[in-house]
């Protein structure tokens, strides 16, 4: 389910079936790595749309955690930690963090939610059909990962 009124209606009604929250991590910066952060944000946004379509009945796709890359690791971790605590408190059994930023990979052991790190692909050079099929493949890979986590959790 997306973070839109229509889907949230459904979420409130069918809450017992929704036990997973996905939070896309979207980097922002204006330094030398501006292009890189844009590419990562773009890729993760597109991917999250496809992922939501695949699993809309069981997960809620949050609007995304945008952060400044220049901010220190500790402040980012504590900011994200608050999200995780809140989501846990709201009864989400599975929390997935979706990112392309390798910074998070190095901080993985300090995060509570399952971190899914995918290298971002240069989607801007692809035509739409090709792009969709690539994203589809990526989502298929994630599919197994999600199903596995769900099965382990039960």
């Amino acid at each position, binding site marked *: 389910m997306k973070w839109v009124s229509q889907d949230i209606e*459904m979420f409130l009604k069918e809450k017992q*079936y929704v036990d997973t929250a996905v939070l896309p991590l979207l980097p922002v910066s204006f330094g030398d790595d501006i292009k890189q952060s844009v590419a990562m944000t773009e890729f993760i946004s597109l991917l999250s749309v496809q992922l939501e379509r695949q*699993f809309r*009945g069981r997960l809620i796709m949050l609007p995304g955690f945008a952060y400044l890359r220049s901010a220190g690791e500790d402040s980012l971790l504590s900011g994200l930690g608050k999200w995780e605590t809140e989501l846990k408190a709201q009864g989400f059994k599975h929390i997935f963090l979706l990112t392309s930023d390798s910074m998070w990979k190095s901080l993985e052991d300090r995060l509570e939610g399952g971190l899914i790190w995918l290298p971002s692909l240069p989607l801007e050079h692809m035509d739409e*059909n090709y792009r*969709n099929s690539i994203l589809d493949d990526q989502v298929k890979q994630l599919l197994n990962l999600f199903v596995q986590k769900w099965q382990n959790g039960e």
Partner: protein
Amino acid sequence: MSKNRVSRRQFLNYTLTGVGGFMAAGMLMPMVRFAVDPVLQAAGESDFIPTKQKVAEVTETPTRVDYTFEQQDAWYTSEVTGTAWVYKDEKGEIVALSPVCKHLGCVVDWNTDKSNPDHFYCPCHGGLYTKDGTNVPGTPPAAPLDVYPYTEKDGFLYLGKAEPRKEA
């Protein structure tokens, strides 16, 4: 001097009638056009969307057929991808099922659950459907999968808008 001399009065009469006529026509034409517009509206390409699937190549195993169409939201056109599970039933007729689970809208997959082969399986909450799209009792979905109406054109499969099944 010609016999049909046009008098000043006549000339003005003709001109006024002419101009008045044009004005009346100018007002009436759009009205009439609006009134009959629905009749003139071209039936269009109907609502069938072409796929890349050749009808002759449809097998008895459900295969995933993707199609794209342009969706217009006001002035913004975007390309939307849709999917169907297509196969031939025992009578040799084509069946095109929507992959959207009737429970909460996840995407179902064919034959991915090892304990229930030859079923459509929803990874979210374990919904099961038999090959013809009927929901298996005891699993979350409460209705069979939607069915696409289809036609064949130049050997290719065209899909309409998925409809909920009436029976069952």
